[in-house]
């Protein structure tokens, strides 16, 4: 498919474990964004990449969260020592160019449940 894909679609983990969430952006999109949606909340911006660089990491909730992007394509969001409050849907979006907010195309998300 030509859209943004994310894997896994669902992840259940135990408190204290590490998890990796993957995002495959639309081919050719240079900008990539991570958001999360906790229960009953709106989407919360986490981090964005322009190419492989992440100039603004201020949205990451804690130092247990990290993200990387390689080859200007796939991105991985890693959560170490997961906590129950990390349970949420993690959404990835990409855009052809940086800064074009309405051009962000979202993936289906990864639903993370921390027991």
């Amino acid at each position: 498919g030509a859209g943004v894909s994310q894997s896994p679609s669902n992840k259940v983990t135990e408190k204290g474990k590490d998890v990796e969430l993957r995002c495959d952006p639309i081919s050719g999109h240079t900008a990539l964004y991570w958001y999360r949606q906790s229960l009953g909340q709106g989407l919360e911006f986490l981090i964005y990449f322009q190419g492989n660089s992440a100039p603004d990491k201020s949205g990451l909730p804690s130092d247990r969260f990290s993200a990387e992007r390689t080859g200007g394509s796939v991105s991985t969001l890693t959560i170490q020592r997961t906590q129950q409050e990390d349970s949420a849907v993690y959404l990835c979006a990409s855009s052809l160019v940086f800064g074009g907010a309405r051009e962000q195309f979202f993936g289906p998300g990864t639903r993370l449940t921390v027991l």
Partner: protein
Amino acid sequence: DQQVKQNSPSLSVQEGRISILNCDYTNSMFDYFLWYKKYPAEGPTFLISISSIKDKNEDGRFTVFLNKSAKHLSLHIVPSQPGDSAVYFCAARSNSGGSNYKLTFGKGTLLTVNP
């Protein structure tokens, strides 16, 4: 503090009638507003947007109105169709501090259109 507020968690309308979804914001630096539509198990999809220099933007059955003095925008869907049933998110972008990539979302309104 929530900068984008959607005070109605849900809305139910009859097919063929008008749906009006409301959104309020507090940040006067927001200069671009968007509505996204989200079906279950899918990522949000862009619906319509409006720049702060305008007070109305229309696209088919969808019209967004912006009242800057009241810091209020609304999405009108006329006529409403059962396929419009989804969660609608209001989002805003600030052009200050080089943060025009970051979207701030409301919590969403679940629209149900009854046949």
